[in-house]
């Protein structure tokens, strides 16, 4: 996973969430995805979230290296494991469960 170019060293804790939202330009879906991602950061993850928005038209290589192929897509880069949510982020329950389950085992169990 490539680090985003705007780290804020020293200000992070283990509990910090690093989220990257991949969007496609100025589309409706992108706009809505941004709004929802921000809601998430200011809601459930208030004070623990750093959100970065990447336009795949500008930086397709970042999307590829993050294994994001369809957008909008919200990627949790920290804490590991990396998690990805594709499409509409308005189903906050689903999104939250996808993003907030910290351990892969937990995730697998929840999915099983």
């Amino acid at each position, binding site marked *: 996973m490539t680090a*985003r*170019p*705007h780290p804020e060293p020293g200000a992070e804790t283990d509990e910090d969430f690093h989220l990257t*939202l991949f*969007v*496609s*330009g*100025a*589309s*409706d*879906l*992108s*706009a*809505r995805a*941004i*709004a929802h*991602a*921000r809601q998430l*950061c200011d809601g459930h993850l208030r004070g623990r979230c750093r*959100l*970065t*928005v*990447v*336009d*795949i*038209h*500008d930086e*397709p*290589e970042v*999307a*590829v290296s993050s294994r*994001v*192929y*369809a*957008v*909008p897509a919200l990627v949790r880069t920290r804490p*590991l*494991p990396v*998690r*990805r*949510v*594709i*499409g*509409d982020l308005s189903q906050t329950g689903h999104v939250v469960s*996808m993003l907030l389950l910290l*351990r*892969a*085992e937990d*995730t*697998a169990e929840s*999915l*099983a």
Partner: protein
Amino acid sequence: MTSRAEALLRMAEAEDTLRAIGAGEVDAFVVADEGREHRVFTLATPDRPYRMFVENMHDGAATLSSSGLILYANRRLAELLARPRETIVGSPLATFLAPGGGAGLDEVRGPGGLGTALELELIGVDGIRVPVQVGSSPLFVDGEQMLCLTFTDLSVHKVKDREIARLGQAQAERLAELQVAQAALTQQATHDALTGLPNRALLIDQIDQAIAGCQRSGQFIAVLFVDLDRFKQVNDTHGHAAGDVMLRRVAAKLVAALRSTDTVARIGGDEFVVLTAEVGSQLHAVDMGSRLLSELTRRPAAAADEERIGASIGISVSAGGRGTAESLLNEADTAMYEAKSLGGQRVSVFDAALGRQVRRRSIARQALQSALDDHRITAYFQPIIDLASGSAAGFEALARIVECDGSITPPAAFIPAAEESGLVVPLGAQVLQIALTEASGWSPAGTVSPLNIAVNLSSRQFEGGDLAAEVENLLDMTGMPADGLHLELTETAVMDLHVDFLDQLGSITALGVQIGLDDFGTGYASLTHLRRLPLRFVKIDQSFVQGLGTENEDERIVGAVIDLAANLGLRSIAEGVETADQLHQLRELGCDQAQGYLFARPLPPADVEAAIQRLADPTHC
């Protein structure tokens, strides 16, 4: 993480992706293409062209959620904020506004505020403030009111505004300066600086307009040319400042004496012109001229010490739009000269007779010019008899033109034209040279003293400034002794003499040359002049001499002049002596010398020697 868990996650993500695609929640795909640029495929939508437009437009654009988050920012907004777009999108707009800016935005968002323009300041990455004008329009998505904003960079405009304001100010100042300068130039170009009266250019313009008006109405206009008499004397005697005062006084008097519809202009040193469009006839114009003359001459009792102003006025009248400004001015000028030549302080009107006279003078001038060019000027010599000894004391040289057919033209035919045109200067120089050349060759056989040569001098010959040098040069060339040259100035010439001319006269007398006054009694020379000038002789005008024996008054005048001359130590010479009786009387009155037909007419150079011999014979008269 175990590989099993990892696989489950990947599978869940894949399912999620498929579900999202199926639900229409995905609008673009990235396809990795190793070794090449990754490609992005976007699902085309009908509004895509507008998105492209917004994306690439020159103004910043953003979509704001109802809570103020930036959901979308175009490239330009990122440029304005000098930040990467990913740090902008998803952040509240307030983060990028200068303090207090958010409140303004709330107003925009509020009822009635939409669609209005608002000026805000964005804060760039380094705290640099960028003034922007914000335009807004509402956007409803799924029941949520969003806001579409545009940001127009004002910094360039503001700089430009300031520049424009500065330039505008400078330009306005420059324009005002130009207008003032233009007005001054116009005033300068059309008015006389000393008196503030219109100048020649403006006068000509106004005369032309008046003529055009007369062509329509058939009325009269009159041009009155006013020239001050003896203004040069005022300048010479009292200085130019006094002259200027007089000119201003004349200007004021003329303006006061005329109606506001009349024009008064100053077109030269002491030359004023009045244009009046309301004259019924030529007589009317003459009345007006006479009135102006008396107004100019009138001296208020309180100003008795003021220099008396005299003037000559020439009038030209145009009926029904006849002539041009130039022709009317020329005619009025000619009439003015006529008034001046009649002694000044009078009014003359240009008429057909004067016109003929002018034409005659013009012809005479041309004839004189061609005679000068062809060296057809010669001199005749009239002996001047010493009344004590009866022999010739000398000769007076008199100019003649030798016509192409050999005939001789007397001076009366060309001297007025010569004086008027200035040709008297080359004429005088040629006559002086001829006279000195001839006189230097005369043999004074039988005479007591060497023969003198008298030559007439015009005041205009002083204008070149080097008359003394010219005379000295001719004396050297001809070998004529300086005291043998007698230069005669008319009284009128003496009146015209500037201070500078008097200096030249002094230089000439310093050479030994004698100066005398010609035609004494006909002009205005005062005793002051007799005293002021370095004179050696006076010539009594023939008009007085011819009255001797018949007019008692003339006898008294001639006697008085002879006595006056004797008392001032001057030689007296009588002109125009035709009878033995006149000669007798002159001898009785104590006159020193005489000339006239009684002794000899003016003689061609070839006859001079014989005359000298004849006059040496004491029995000749």
